[in-house]
């Protein structure tokens, strides 16, 4: 047990990195994903097609590859080429990637809302943005909670990919100790940390679902 306390320091530091990547990605990817979803369903075929291609690209290649590309290859791309440090590189890759998945969840949610809701709002004089903000999106939230819960839990675990940029997230910190001390205990502790984080998310989403259960459709 004393050993567990001894290794707690570096593991908590790794957890802090993991939580940072998770929270920043979530805060940026959700609004970005919503914008993508709205463009994807817009009447402008060119925009919709571009977003479609973007989603294909982001879902069709490994997140790890995207991260490596942004860190190592982006500096050499003409015009947009910039050199980003490791942490921003990881964040950019995660946001771009997760926004694509969120966009598809939002799109499915928006398109599942009955046309009558739009007509009901329209005959009351509401504009399209008003209808989206006040009528459609609040109903979408309820419907997308289960897939969003899935996706955010996956995000917690995907943060471990940042080890390829030599960043010390929870898993890499644990592995470092394993290799130093020749014991697998750090892995067990790391697993417990991941489980605690995902438990918090699971409970959070369950609370949200309960909150939205006040109305049926």
């Amino acid at each position, binding site marked *: 047990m004393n050993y567990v306390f001894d290794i707690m320091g570096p593991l908590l530091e790794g957890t802090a990195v993991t939580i940072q990547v998770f929270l920043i990605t979530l805060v940026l990817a959700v609004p970005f994903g919503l914008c993508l979803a709205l463009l994807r369903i817009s009447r402008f075929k060119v925009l919709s097609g571009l977003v479609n291609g973007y989603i294909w690209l982001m879902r069709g290649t490994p997140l790890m590859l995207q991260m490596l590309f942004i860190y190592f290859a982006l500096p050499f791309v003409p015009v947009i080429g910039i050199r980003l440090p490791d942490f921003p590189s990881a964040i950019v890759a995660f946001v771009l990637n997760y926004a694509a998945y969120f966009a598809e969840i939002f799109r499915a949610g928006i398109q599942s809302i009955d046309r*009558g809701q739009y007509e009901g*709002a329209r005959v*009351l004089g509401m504009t399209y943005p*008003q209808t989206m903000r006040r009528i459609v999106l609040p109903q979408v939230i309820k419907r997308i909670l289960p897939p969003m819960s899935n996706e955010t839990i996956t995000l917690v675990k995907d943060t471990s990919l940042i080890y390829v940029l030599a960043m010390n997230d929870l898993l890499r910190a644990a592995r470092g100790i394993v290799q130093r001390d020749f014991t697998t205990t750090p892995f067990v502790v790391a697993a417990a940390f991941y489980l605690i984080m995902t438990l918090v998310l699971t409970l959070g989403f369950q609370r949200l679902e309960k909150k939205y259960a006040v109305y049926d459709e």
Partner: protein
Amino acid sequence: MMNDIAGPMVHAQDVHKRFGSLEVLKGVSLDIEKGEVVAVIGPSGSGKSTFLRCLNHLEKINRGRIDIEGETLVTTDAHGVCHYVADPDIRRICGKMGMVFQHFNLFPHLTVLQNVIEAPMTVKGLARDAIVPKAEALLRKVGLLDKRDAYPSRLSGGQKQRVAIARALAMEPDIMLFDEPTSALDPELTGEVLRTMRELAEEHMTMLVVTHEMAFAREVASRVVFMDGGEILESRPSRELFASPEHPRTRAFLENML
């Protein structure tokens, strides 16, 4: 609410509407005067609902002209091309009309009271305190004040439709459009909705009602319009039309219905 205007509240002239190659409206013309209650009857697929939906721009017409309270919504030029007015004007003109749908289209995530005050707040920018007393008065009028904090899913069909009527009235329309308001209801629930509509008619609301309720058309409507095949075949005071339908198709339809 509205100033006296010369001419009809609704003026539709030679309205054509196609869905693909299917011609749903083949030149429908209708004027509705202030305070008139006009029932539109006819077989399914006759274009009644489509015509109603064209009046408040839920459907775009392919040819013809529509004026609401003397203001032009859409015209057609000499080349047969339709011109709608600008979007803000469309919203303002259509804002003179309230609409009640067959399937209610209440907002399920909002309570009854929130359903009624939503548009006055977001569209007219009224403060909550300013609109709530009025919304409560409307709910009392349709007999649902005790349901003000219930969600729509807890209401019966008839109650939903009465909330939908209150919601439309909260925007203070000059004209009310009803698109088969009782068709989705169990028979024993149609009475309460028709009663609310009758009260509205007695307050001299201008109403256009697409309906299969012949009793309502006969007793409440001042005029009945019979549509079939995308055309108006007969438009006469309701008593006359029911007593002596002129067109053979009207006669056949009424014999089937009664």
